[in-house]
């Protein structure tokens, strides 16, 4: 998961997409173009233009060195024939359970458990719980490579309580069955702290009167959660859902460091496939196509989540 601060706040911005920006205020001044120009020139030259170039390249079969040959949509139809691409997307969907679904569920559960009392020293907990998200992904990936080592903490602990045979001979990251879930747990560890803090902050903002009203109406803890807490966290839920889903879809750092896509292609993900095809196997056209499709999926998912949350608001 690449849930660095960049993505965290990036998704925050997306959360606001659902509200049309109110009519832009301010005086009508053409000097505005001058202020926006430097940022826009850089942004257009290195984000928008390459996007079009990428789309163009994705219609070629190109090894990156000699002139490419036009192949139309072959690079895209390859998605349904090439098993490694299909595998890449199924892996990332599985990872989404660990990177998005579980942290949110756990975060919500814990936030609900920690009732609304002012917690002194919350900042200390906030710092510690934020660390996994803030520290460089490569560092946390290296740390977890050690955690998953044959005689790292997890294996030793299991052996200590007599479950040594559970430890896969190939090592957690080397075994075909445990490699992907292992990366998943790494993402869960990275995300659950942020979710907990975000939801706690959200719960703190829910007016106390709502809780008192629910209590007066005789709501038990469960009913209170669904009647007050959950609706109160609607906005946080939407943002963290978008954040973690996008974070999962363009995962790269930990896959490169921890498993290199292995064993075999058991943990290959779209972003890793793009890198591999661009650099290792010289399938540049296909790498471009993979990137474009990944972007389209991210668009669709973000739009869907915003739309679902939007309808949720009106319901």
């Amino acid at each position, binding site marked *: 998961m690449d849930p660095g601060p960049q993505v965290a706040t990036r998704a*925050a911005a997306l959360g606001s997409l659902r509200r049309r920006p109110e009519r832009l205020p301010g005086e009508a*001044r053409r*000097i505005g173009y001058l202020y926006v120009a430097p940022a826009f020139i*850089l942004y257009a030259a290195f984000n*928008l233009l390459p996007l079009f170039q990428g789309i163009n390249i994705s219609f070629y079969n190109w090894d990156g060195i000699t002139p490419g040959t036009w192949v139309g949509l072959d690079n895209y139809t390859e998605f349904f024939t090439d098993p490694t691409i299909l595998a890449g997307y199924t892996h990332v969907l599985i990872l989404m359970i660990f990177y998005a679904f579980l942290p949110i569920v756990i975060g919500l559960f814990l936030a609900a458990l920690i009732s609304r009392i002012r917690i002194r020293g919350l900042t200390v907990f906030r710092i510690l719980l*934020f660390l996994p998200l803030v520290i*460089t992904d490569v560092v946390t990936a290296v740390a977890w490579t050690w955690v998953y080592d044959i005689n790292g903490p997890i294996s030793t602990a299991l052996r200590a309580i007599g479950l040594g045979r559970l430890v896969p001979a190939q090592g957690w990251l080397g075994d075909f069955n445990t490699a992907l879930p292992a990366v998943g747990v790494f993402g869960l560890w990275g995300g659950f702290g942020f979710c907990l803090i975000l939801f706690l902050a959200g719960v703190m903002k829910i007016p106390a009167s709502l809780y008192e009203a629910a209590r007066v109406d005789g709501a038990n803890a469960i009913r209170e959660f669904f009647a007050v807490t959950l609706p109160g966290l609607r906005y946080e839920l939407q943002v963290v859902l978008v954040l973690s889903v996008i974070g999962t879809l363009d995962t790269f750092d930990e896959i490169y460091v921890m498993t290199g896509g292995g064993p075999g292609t058991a943990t290959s993900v779209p*972003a890793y496939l*793009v890198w591999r095809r661009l650099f290792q196997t010289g399938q540049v056209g296909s790498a471009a196509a993979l990137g474009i499709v990944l972007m389209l999926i991210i668009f669709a998912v973000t739009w869907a989540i915003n739309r679902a949350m939007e309808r949720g608001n009106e319901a």
Partner: protein
Amino acid sequence: MNTTASRAQVAFNYALLTLCSIIAIYPLIGVALASLYPPGPDSAPSGFGLPPTFAWHNYVTAWEQGKFATSFTTSLIVAFVMVPASVLLSILGGYAFATMRFWGSTVLFYLFILGLIIPTEATIVPLYYDVRAMGLLDTYWALIILEVSGEVAFGIFWMRAAFLSAPPSLLEAARIDGSSSWTTLWRIMVPFAKPAILTLTVLTFADSWNEFFLALVFTVNKFTAPAGLASFSGRYTTDIALVSAGAVIVAIPILIVFIIFQREFMRGMLTGAVKG
């Protein structure tokens, strides 16, 4: 709302939060401890006991073997050029979008918002060949330009929200007082939005320091710290102590920045997440 909370509930909260915190920091503490085990493939720290001897020397060897001197310089140079540039451009752009109406400004703003959703993977392929054509491969400038062009999208969104929160009368007073848009920006709006600017600076630094994919693609000798660590851990897979030392070295700068600017990080990621 402290009324009916029983002592047990408070104790339970602290217990739960402490447990979560332990889970969150255990791998980092573990790797820090592992880095003090004697080097060599068979030192295999199990992560529970303290290292037999505190092999502080690992850090020196890791620093040299992993050539972190060069990768740290790269990361620092890139950050120290990229962060101010990106923040400045974001302030200028955000200011324009917040306080001025010009034809097409809404479309332009949405174009930037689009940037938040375009993953690096979608543009990396052509970018590689463009940068190579410009002869910028393996230069600090490649990283600086690409990171700034990536950060600006979010930066402008962030600064626009910050400037919009200023009372409109402030701007109008400045217009009447005869202050040009430039003076208004630097004498009035920027001081007003200082907290938001500090947050943006901290977040931009974190993104730059943690950048890995761009470094991997665009640099060869001039690796950034994370790329240096990845290459180092790739070559010394067996020597866990040494690799762990490398990991701790790369973690230190961002850790320091986070501890110092913890409030800014929080505001950036929480209110940002909520205010949107």
